């Protein structure tokens, strides 16, 4: 993870199009490797809940890109029932899972959760607006999904 660049997902562990589900993994940087921990909190480094939400959103976004073959770009629209059950410290290895709940016309809903060694850390229900790719973003996303090892469905 590169928290300050919002680069939250390190690698795809499993992408299951039939199950409409993805599992990814991310390692939280060391305390002295990210300025985020200088402020959150001095002497008590913890990953902010908003960045855990972003991590779940990105796993969901990659799931949607994988399923739609990069025909539309998902943008986070709604966060429901977000629960943060325990603290996440520097160096933690996060298993981030997301599954499709419903895909409508122009939107999609997912359930996402983060665990560490099987222990629930946080979860949320997320919704995304599906839109045409803004200029150049598709190229960026193609490079990103290649970097994390996601092989999308053919559109």
């Amino acid at each position, binding site marked *: 993870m590169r928290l300050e660049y919002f680069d939250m997902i390190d690698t795809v562990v499993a992408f299951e199009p039939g199950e409409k589900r993805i599992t990814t993994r991310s390692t939280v940087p060391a305390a002295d490797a990210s300025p985020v921990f200088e402020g959150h909190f001095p002497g008590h480094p913890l990953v902010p809940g908003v960045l855990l939400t972003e991590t779940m959103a990105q796993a969901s976004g990659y799931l949607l890109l994988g399923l739609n073959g990069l025909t539309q770009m998902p943008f986070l*629209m*709604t966060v429901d029932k977000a629960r943060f059950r325990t603290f996440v410290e520097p160096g933690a290895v996060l298993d981030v899972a997301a599954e499709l709940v*419903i895909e*409508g*016309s*122009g*939107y999609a*809903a997912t359930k996402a959760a983060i665990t560490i060694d099987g222990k629930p850390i946080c979860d949320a229900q997320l*919704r995304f*607006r599906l839109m045409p790719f803004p200029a150049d973003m598709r190229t960026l996303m193609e490079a990103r999904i290649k970097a994390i090892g996601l092989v999308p469905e053919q559109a």
Partner: protein
Amino acid sequence: MSATFETVAGIISETCDIPREKITPESHAIADLGIDSLAFLDIAFAIDKAFGIKLPLEQWTQEVNEGKAPAEQYFVLENLCKRIDDLVAAKAA
């Protein structure tokens, strides 16, 4: 008023925080109720779940934007409810 309208009006009232009494079958979701496109996606999500359908919002929006259909055809609530009833019937057929 139809059961479909009652359900849709309840969804709009709850989703957009609009007093239920302001929502009538003649209400235009955009012009009268001030619902924007993002809020309408929230409504579509709730309608899809409530009726077990998939509102073809992208197709409707494209038709309106291209001048192939008047917005009233889809976004006046009595017309929207008729579309919902048609989609439910098509699914059951």
